[in-house]
């Protein structure tokens, strides 16, 4: 099963990149794959270039040293990294001692309180246990734990999905300010286009293990290059929605993906070539990329390939 199939993305220092896609598109696997945190039986291939080194294939020990001070990760469920039997103070001490063993107690306390303060956690609660905090505060503590090591890149995998909308707004405001406050770049993995629109500089849309399109948020929203992006935007229900739209069919089974372009069975603009050939990545103006035959290249499309596909109605059996 190809969870991630030939993905290339770049994140600049201090940049906020939103990786958006629906369930099963491979975005979480990509996020963890970057850090080498893959489940058993999974193998990664390709390049993850960080600081001039390729992280794929690095031995676990080297990766462990990088995880933390260089690459941070926060999850959807804020209790995953918090030990219910340890005070917050102990969490921070353990983290800092592991990666910066030269720090003294006072420095540890200073750094921890400072980071927590920026996350809105008061020093009066430094010695409390995780269960004494609410969900939103635990997520802030998780973020603070990741940021106290001043990582260059923070990967946030659906950090607000399990939180209420007002708390979500609070957390997103914190994440959006990472660049100013910490100089940290952020890879924000989410299924929510609204979050991407409000907090990210650039975005990458994933579908069935591949990047459908990538570019600055403003440009992609204003003029989506890939039909999936366009349909996804139309399907998103917001306060301005007048009509309901959905995308017919369902995401493909990644063990047996459809031939050619993975989106073609559901694409309203599918052409003949889309059935047989996987689209090739194209660079567009304005620092954008897209993988779609609608954007050529012409010389790779065979005779008659541009003809619109006459699809039989997608059986509802395939409907989600």
């Amino acid at each position, binding site marked *: 099963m190809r969870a991630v199939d030939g*993905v290339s993305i770049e994140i600049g220092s201090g940049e906020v990149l939103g990786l958006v896609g629906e369930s099963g598109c491979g975005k979480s696997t990509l996020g963890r794959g970057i850090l080498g945190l893959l489940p058993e039986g999974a193998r990664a291939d390709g390049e993850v270039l960080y600081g001039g080194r390729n992280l794929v294939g690095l031995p676990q020990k080297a990766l462990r040293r990088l995880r933390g001070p260089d690459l941070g990760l926060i999850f959807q469920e804020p209790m995953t990294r918090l030990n219910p039997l340890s005070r917050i103070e102990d969490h921070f001490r353990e983290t800092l001692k592991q990666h910066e063993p030269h720090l003294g107690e006072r420095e540890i306390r200073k750094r921890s309180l400072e980071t927590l303060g920026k996350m809105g956690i008061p020093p009066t609660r430094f010695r409390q246990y995780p269960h004494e905090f609410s969900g939103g505060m635990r997520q802030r503590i998780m973020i603070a734990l990741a940021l106290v090591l001043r990582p260059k890149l923070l990967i946030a995998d659906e950090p607000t999905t399990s939180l209420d909308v007002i708390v979500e707004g609070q957390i997103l405001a914190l994440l959006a300010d990472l660049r100013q406050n910490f100089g940290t770049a952020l890879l924000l993995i989410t299924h929510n286009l609204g979050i991407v629109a409000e907090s990210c500089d650039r975005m990458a849309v994933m579908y069935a293990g591949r990047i459908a399109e990538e570019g600055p948020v403003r440009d992609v929203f204003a003029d989506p290059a890939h039909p999936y992006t366009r349909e996804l935007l139309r399907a998103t229900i917001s306060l301005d929605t007048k009509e309901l739209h959905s995308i017919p069919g369902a995401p493909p089974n990644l*063990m047996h993906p459809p031939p050619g372009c993975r989106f073609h069975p559901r694409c309203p603009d599918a052409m003949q070539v889309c059935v047989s050939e996987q689209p090739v990545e194209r660079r567009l103006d304005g620092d954008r990329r897209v993988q779609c035959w609608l954007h050529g290249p012409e010389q790779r499309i065979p005779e008659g390939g541009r003809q619109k596909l006459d699809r039989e109605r997608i059986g509802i059996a395939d409907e989600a």
Partner: protein
Amino acid sequence: MAVATATPRGIRRRLVGPGLRRLWSPVAETQGLARVMFVTGATITLFFLVLAFFARWIAPYGFTQYQAHGHRFAQLAHPSAHHLMGTTVESDDVLSRVVWGAQTELKVVFLALVLSLLAGVPLGLVSGYFSGWLDRILVLVMDALFAFPPLLLAIVIAFLLGSTVSSGVVTAAIAITATYVPQYFRVVRNHVISVREETYVEAARALGARPFTIISRYVFFNVVQNVPVIATLNAADAILTLAGLGFLGYGVQPTQAAEWGYDVQRALSDATNGIWWTGLFPGLAIVLLVAGLTLLGEGLNETLNPVLRRRRFGRIDFGPIAPGEEERT
């Protein structure tokens, strides 16, 4: 970058019904130690099952048969061509007693298992689903039973029943049942308590289902996954308990059937006289059967328990990275 997850191979599709297939597929997928344990255990257990089922044809003689063709067998004879495992002081053929003993052991243990399940599982279901005072009382009773040293409990019950129940097999089975009922009760009850909170159970309530319907259709099938493992491991333990009872003279009486524990006890005095075959073979049989069942149970546990399960993965081949096109539109 590409990440691929290998698919488990060797899933047999041609089994009866989708339900069985779902049960079998984890078994076929196991690898490593779990598989070895499972296969070894299954083989040994199967061997003894064959002995038990076909005792009449496999055993050369009856279990109290001390003569044939008018000849009385030699007493305490060395293992030889006539008596592959030798004879006892009463001229009984050891091999026959071992084979017949297998039948006894498995008969008793099977009966005990069935009775324990019939008692423990429904009580666990009811106790876990309804809670309240019924639950409190049952838990108290079961914990008390559980706290009792099992062999002691079995002895007491066998002793009490020995006078009223004629069949030693049934007596032994009931005695053993009492020691295992708390386990099934507890496991099922705990599982029910967590399943009870599941959305689909609440959905069943919302449909107006009566408690009995909910328990039988919605709860039961979702809580019994652990039972086979526990049953197998209990079977192993039950063999030991039964042998212990037999050793002490309770449960199965020598006139009713051959029993390994009893044989071992009789062989104690032989050992001091340098006669090893009367004790070794029954003893070995006990050890082997218990080991086989234990391996089977542990192998099953590693197989069925999703946390412990280690699947067999195929190879993953990555193709060459497709060259990126760098043209502008």
